[in-house]
């Protein structure tokens, strides 16, 4: 109970500080929370900015496709590396090394190769979401207790049965975590792609507003996107919790 009170207090103090400091500084550059709702209304109504709904839809489609590809690719590579011991031992270190490279450096090449349209955004979203999924599959396979497999084998289960009835159920909660992280990263990938070079999409609209120095509208959009991303991750977290309680 006390914790919630403190959190509410912290939130209120932060919002108040934001509002007060914004009012004291240049309104062209600093936008307090009180100006945001009106700015959001303007974003939807104005002709100076590209129409939001169409671009929002495009972004959502890009995210969906990127995520689907990331799941497919991540699961496939993860299982190949995880189940085929020798292949895994050769290629997993190479994969980990790639992880040490800041992901954004691949984006200019994707822009060059796929252009400024949705393809490069989908590709980048796929690239970012792919890693956590692969890692989750690998981790999931590793944490399956060896005793469970031994029990199944001792009862006469074949390789495929062991995989289906022992490994997969034992991996589900780790996979759920990977799915959640993969979603978050696919979203980030698409947004980054749109902000760095695009002709359409939510990121494009944000860049547009920033380019026209429509700071309030830009801030409103950013808050909107931030809230949307948090809600999405919150939903994913709930789903992950559900999976964990089912499988224990």
């Amino acid at each position, binding site marked *: 109970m*006390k*914790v919630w009170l*403190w*959190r509410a207090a*912290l*939130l209120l103090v932060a919002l108040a500080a934001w509002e007060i400091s914004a009012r004291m500084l240049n309104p062209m*550059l600093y936008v307090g929370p009180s100006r945001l709702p009106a700015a959001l209304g303007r974003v939807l109504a104005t002709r100076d900015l590209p129409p939001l709904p169409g671009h929002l839809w495009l972004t959502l489609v890009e995210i969906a496709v990127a995520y689907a590809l990331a799941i497919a690719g991540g699961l496939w590579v993860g299982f190949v590396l995880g189940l085929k011991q*020798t292949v895994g*031992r*050769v*290629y997993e*270190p*190479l994969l980990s*090394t790639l992880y*040490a*490279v*800041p*992901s*954004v*450096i*691949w*984006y*200019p*090449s994707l*822009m*060059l*190769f796929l252009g400024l349209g949705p393809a490069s955004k989908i590709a980048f979203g796929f690239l970012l979401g792919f890693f956590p999924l692969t890692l989750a599959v690998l981790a999931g396979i590793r944490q399956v207790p060896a005793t469970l497999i031994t029990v199944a084998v001792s009862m006469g289960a074949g390789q495929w049965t062991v995989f289906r009835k022992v490994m997969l159920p034992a991996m589900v909660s780790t996979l759920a975590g990977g799915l959640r992280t993969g979603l*978050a990263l696919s*979203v*980030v990938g698409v*947004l*980054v792609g749109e*902000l*760095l*070079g695009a002709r359409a999409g939510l990121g494009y609209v*944000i*860049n547009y507003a*920033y380019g026209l*120095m429509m*700071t309030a509208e*830009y*801030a409103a959009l*950013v808050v909107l*996107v*931030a809230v949307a*991303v*948090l809600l999405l*991750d919150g939903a994913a977290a709930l789903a992950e919790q559900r999976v964990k309680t089912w499988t224990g």
Partner: protein
Amino acid sequence: MDRLRLLTWQALSVAALVLAWEAAVRWRVVDPLFVPAPSAVLGALRATGGDALPRLADTLLKTLVGYALAVGVGVPVGLVLGSRPMAHAVVMPFLVALYGIPKILVLPWIALIFGIGLSTAALSATVFAIFPVVVLVAAGTRDVDPTLVTVAASMGAGRWQITRKVLLPAVLPSVLTAMRVAMVFALLGALIAEMLAGNRGMGFQMQRMALAFRAPELFAATVIVSVVSIAVVLFLEHLNRRLGRWR
């Protein structure tokens, strides 16, 4: 499979990939305008190598400034949060929420205020790196074995002595891990800032080459940044191992 065979397989795989790539471009399976041949990339590396150094130095400078800020602020904050359960419980959800928001969203605003150049990129590096630092250090501080604190207290250690002789050494591995992770994030932040709103540095260069369809130069720059990044991470991991012999 022993280490030598492993390394041989890895080297052969990479070599095979590069050869296949070269062949694909030579035989026009892929358009050299979009995908440059490895030989062309090599040529570009030789040609632009000289210019790359100052650009790289620029990016690294921004990275290091942002990194220093992130670590300098993040580690103490993490220590405080980790050692006070109430503060931790209250603040953590906000931190996790802030961490989950794509940080690139605030970069245009930072660029608006600080302009195109070092400050924006360094600040961007800080923003990207500070969250993992705080989270990792706070977690490491919370994980300190309470028995160790009890042992010290039973021997009459005062508050300050306990902090200095028990908490700080116990937390060191987490701090080192956080510092290692922060480096990649800081570099990421600096590069993104350069791509979005920069006029110098490797990120800006890559963006420029991409928009000019100069594929060999772009790939050359990408290779340079990748190699430097991997080298830095490997070095930090090596440092980590040497400083943590007792683990």
